[in-house]
């Protein structure tokens, strides 16, 4: 049975989990259980919306029953939640990663104090991301961005060491500034259109010639969301914040948070509300090209495993933005597919680096070596993720990069296509460094006594590795029709192309 009234549960259930975890903090295992159950529930709900509805169906629900009224010419007076193909696609990714990360964390977080705080913040972050995804209201989007952001600042500082606090402060300052810019843009939009609902805003704006004010809004939104997505001129916080967090949180931050808060919002607002104007396309292409280059080249020089992965995230988000910037159906499909793949392999790699740190106590790749012998599961799964990141043919990452490059060629962006291809070669080089120094080679004497990580952590690693290996199947017509194509159609159908 499908019921659009169930849409608010994506937010309500994780929130209830968070509040209950704070209430029952004394009972040791209750927060863990609540964390896993709430993310399991959201994942099942998103699966339910994918499998049991016609592909491309779109649902809307008015909170409090305040929909459109004739007194204001059919505009929406309350908050409307919208669930369409793109939303479902993102919800499935976010909640899938969250589920396996929460299971992984049951084992991993035994090393830290304050478990209830971890799960409360984790669920708040999940609720914030889900809220951003399902909302159809500009200001509501800002509120949920803030929930997810503040939870992530606190989670980055979870270890309360010098580095964690410093990284968290930088992240909080940058994120706070981004939020202010976004809020300012929302106010400008409200002042000039008189509504906050995205659908109504599109109707009001589509008839008119864009005034200078709208271009100012473009600038503010691109800066704000660019800061959240860590596109290159605005990326300074990411390489500090993502490695400092505990490994499950690094996986969430790099895997899904920057996408839900930065990439999704840019795609949703610029494609869906503004109809993807030409100027934005050019800016996105430029930012994407710089991000790809800087991220990959700096990653080459890193010895800290998590820091390398963080720079790699900047570069890969550049690929996603390249696909969006091209703006053709093929480009958008490549971008969404790469978004899916990046969520899988980057969270897998961060979890694997956490497993390595759990066993060996170090993140410096110079001190590792030959870990495959002692930790076959971690090594094997990390290898799968690394191959997917590098874009070696049978793995999923190859197909998405191929689609993006083909789309760039089709749209006559030859230089960008060549640049993307060159950067994927550099990606292969730094990925090779991870596998070469950490997992292959001679086992260091110091590490002779290490053990494989506990069962729950291994399960998460294996599932995510399977997603990396089998991710290419998303391109099969049957799966694509259900999962990927509706999302593409949402963006293109409304967009300028």
């Amino acid at each position, binding site marked *: 049975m499908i019921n659009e009234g169930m849409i608010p549960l994506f937010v309500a259930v994780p929130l209830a989990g968070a509040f209950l975890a704070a209430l029952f903090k004394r009972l040791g295992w209750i927060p863990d259980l609540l964390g896993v159950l709430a993310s399991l529930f959201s994942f099942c709900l998103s699966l339910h919306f994918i499998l049991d509805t016609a592909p491309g169906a779109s649902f809307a629900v008015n909170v409090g029953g*305040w929909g459109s009224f004739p007194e204001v010419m059919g505009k929406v007076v309350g908050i409307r939640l919208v669930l369409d193909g793109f939303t479902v696609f993102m919800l499935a990714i976010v909640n899938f990663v969250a589920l396996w990360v929460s299971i992984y964390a049951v084992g991993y977080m035994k090393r830290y104090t304050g478990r209830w705080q971890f799960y409360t913040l984790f669920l*708040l972050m999940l609720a914030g991301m889900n809220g951003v995804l399902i909302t159809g209201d500009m200001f509501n989007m800002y509120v949920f961005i803030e929930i997810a952001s503040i939870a992530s600042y606190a989670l980055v500082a979870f270890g309360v*060491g010098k580095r964690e606090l410093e990284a968290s402060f930088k992240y909080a300052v940058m994120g706070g500034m981004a939020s202010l810019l976004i809020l300012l843009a929302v106010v400008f939009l409200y002042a000039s259109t008189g509504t906050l609902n995205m659908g109504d805003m599109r109707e009001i704006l589509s008839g008119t010639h864009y005034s200078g004010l709208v271009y100012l809004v473009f600038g503010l939104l691109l800066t704000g969301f660019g800061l959240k997505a860590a596109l290159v001129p605005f990326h300074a916080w990411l390489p500090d914040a993502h490695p400092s967090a505990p490994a499950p949180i690094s996986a969430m931050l790099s895997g899904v948070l920057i996408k839900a808060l930065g990439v999704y919002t840019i795609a949703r607002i610029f494609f869906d509300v503004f109809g993807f104007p030409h100027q934005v396309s050019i800016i996105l292409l430029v930012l994407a090209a710089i991000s790809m280059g800087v991220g990959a080249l700096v990653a080459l020089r890193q010895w800290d495993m998590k820091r390398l992965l963080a720079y790699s995230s900047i570069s890969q988000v550049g690929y996603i933005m390249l696909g969006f910037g091209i703006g053709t159906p093929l480009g958008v499909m490549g971008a969404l597919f790469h978004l899916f793949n990046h969520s899988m392999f980057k969270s897998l790699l961060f979890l694997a680096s956490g497993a390595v740190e759990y066993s060996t106590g170090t993140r410096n790749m110079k001190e590792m070596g030959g870990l495959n012998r002692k930790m076959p599961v971690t090594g094997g799964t990390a290898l799968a993720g690394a191959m997917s990141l590098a874009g070696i043919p049978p793995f999923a990452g190859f197909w998405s990069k191929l689609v993006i490059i083909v789309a760039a060629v089709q749209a006559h962006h030859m230089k960008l296509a060549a640049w993307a291809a060159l950067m994927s070669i550099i990606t292969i080089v730094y990925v090779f460094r991870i596998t070469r120094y950490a997992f292959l080679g001679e086992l260091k004497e110091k590490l002779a006594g290490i053990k494989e990580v506990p069962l729950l952590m291994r399960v998460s690693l294996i599932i995510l590795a399977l997603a990396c290996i089998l991710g290419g199947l998303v391109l099969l017509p049957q799966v694509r029709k259900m999962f990927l194509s509706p999302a593409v159609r949402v963006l293109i159908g409304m967009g300028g192309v």
Partner: protein
Amino acid sequence: MIELYVLLGLMIAGAVIAVEVKNLLSAVVAVGVVGLGLSVVFLLLKAPDVALTQLVVEIAAVILLIRATLHRDIASKFLGNRPFGAFVAFIFLVLTTYAGVLIFKSGMPPFGEPLMAVSRFYPLNALEGTGAMNVVTSVILDYRAYDTLGEATVLFTAVVGVLTVMRKMGRKKDLQENDE
């Protein structure tokens, strides 16, 4: 509307003092002045709910800030600027002001004439639809109650976040990081 300009001028002066003064405690007090000016401006602009909330939140924020700055010997020690950041900030400032002055004429309704395309609905229907005499309350707790849920959650997140960063020890013993 001359009083509005006087107050705005006072707030800008207070902000400049807060940013540039050497003593931290003076800076916090200057921000308090800006906040109080803000709540009076809210009253002038016919927003009593907002003025009340701003006033009490201002007091709370200043108490917390003074707790953070007071009793620290370096409260009066002056730390300079970051030249690069100041440069970026200066460019941002010039661009935004220029853009703002140019752009307000094209697309913004003038001050004092809101569009009220949607919000025309609320004063006309709030009394019947929700039963609340205070239209702003009817908006925050009925028409847009979902936002308020989010807002309450933000504060909850901040409380848990404060508890999290205030823990003495992040990792369990014998696993402390090297820098500890």
